[in-house]
């Protein structure tokens, strides 16, 4: 099973839809969008999106989350 061609768009759309109530997401929130796919394949994709500047990491030091770049509290 491969990730759909528009997987990146699907992630952006999902995160944008939820952005009024939530701007930071666990990796699991993203990987569950593609239940047929292995988490490691999804990881590859979301990290690509970080490198491209679509997503960004947010880290508390112990936990890491993903968010659309520039969304929400950055501190």
């Amino acid at each position, binding site marked *: 099973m491969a990730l759909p061609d528009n997987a990146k768009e699907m992630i952006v759309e999902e995160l944008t839809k939820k952005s009024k109530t939530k701007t930071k997401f*666990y*990796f*699991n929130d993203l*990987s569950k969008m593609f239940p047929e796919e*292995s*988490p*490691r394949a*999804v*990881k590859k994709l*979301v*990290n690509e999106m*970080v*490198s491209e500047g679509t997503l*960004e*990491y*947010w*880290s*508390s*030091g*112990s*936990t*890491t989350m993903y*968010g659309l770049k520039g969304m929400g509290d*950055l*501190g």
Partner: protein
Amino acid sequence: MAKHETPMLDELESGPWPSFVSDMKQEAEARAKNVNNVEYQIPVDVVDDLLGVLELSYKHGRTHWKHGGIVGVFGYGGGVIGRYCDQPQEFPGVAHFHTVRVAQPAGKYYTSEYLRQIMDVWDLRGSGLTNMHGSTGDIVLLGTRTEQLEEIFYDLTHKYNTDLGGSGSNLRTPADCLGTSRCEYSCYDTNALCHFLTNEFQDELHRPAFPYKFKFKFDGCPNCCVASLARSDMAFIGTWKDDIRIDQEAVQAYIGGEIPPNGGAHAGRDWGKFDIQKEVIDLCPTGCMWMDGNELKINNKECTRCMHCINAMPRALRIGEDTGCSILVGAKAPILDGQQMGSLLVPFVEVNPDNDYEAIINYIDKIWDWWMMEGKNRERLGETIRRLSFQKLLEACDMEADVRHVAYPRENPYIFWKEEEVPGGWDRDVKEFRKYHQR
């Protein structure tokens, strides 16, 4: 003259022990004098303001730090921990006070030249304060500003051939004991395995996608000097399959007092004559040792690798020659759920650099695949195991349960057989069943 009055912190200097407050004051003074003419890239009074904000925290009884953020270096999801002060007007020197984790070398072997180089970068671009070493083992650089992060990262990676450590939902910087490089008890080369896996799993170290943190620690023997058993999600503890090697002449030398027990570690006072019965044989937790005339005997099948006899008489008793490691999983500190010690998963696995530690990597891959699929957000491996059962982990690792996996016998009276485990299975026709059994 100190920038801020710190009467409560000053109290901490009055005890007989070394005080971190004195260290910080010393660093604040050194930065103010700047005898080396460093062109400080963050405020010179960063340490003064750190003392000030700490005093204020003590006064208010609550923190003035804001925790976390998006700060980091390009391409890495860990290694930098964002920290901001919520009183930046009063303490501008610590408005940003990010932590940088630097990966420690395997076995923490570094030269004084390397440390000076790290400190040259850190005096220039950070507070000059460090924590050697953090609980994951990293060299922890405490306090810098966002705009310095890429510069620090460039210098560390390009000039000093080192890397950032792990933080967040990543593989954390793997940590090991000195292993065979210094220690005769070590059953495998911990430094080599730690270094290899650090390189092998760079992606997991720097690009977070686990449910939560994940720690590897490598102990060369069951003495567990880096406490992998208690402090890592996956502990690699050296062990041996064959017999403890006994030098009977050396045993007699210990009994006769010619060789001091415990490598002379208790030589500070007179503990009396060494008594092998009282100090070694009677303390064996499984009672598998005895004297047969002048010969020390060990029933090796009963040995649980407690290491006491080997520690007490290292010249007489040595680890076996068929060595490898055990893998234990699930240890953690009590942050979310309660604390846990590791549970034995793999009793013995070869540690073979010639095939790139294939057997070990096989287990790591299976465990990660299972945990990434089944683990809830912020759930450590040990908590996933508790929630879903150790049995499920064994299945994920393609392992059969054996007696060494049993922590508490007869704790659970229920046995849930699977169809394939029962001869003939239990394939049944529901319609046929309903003929005789109404709903």
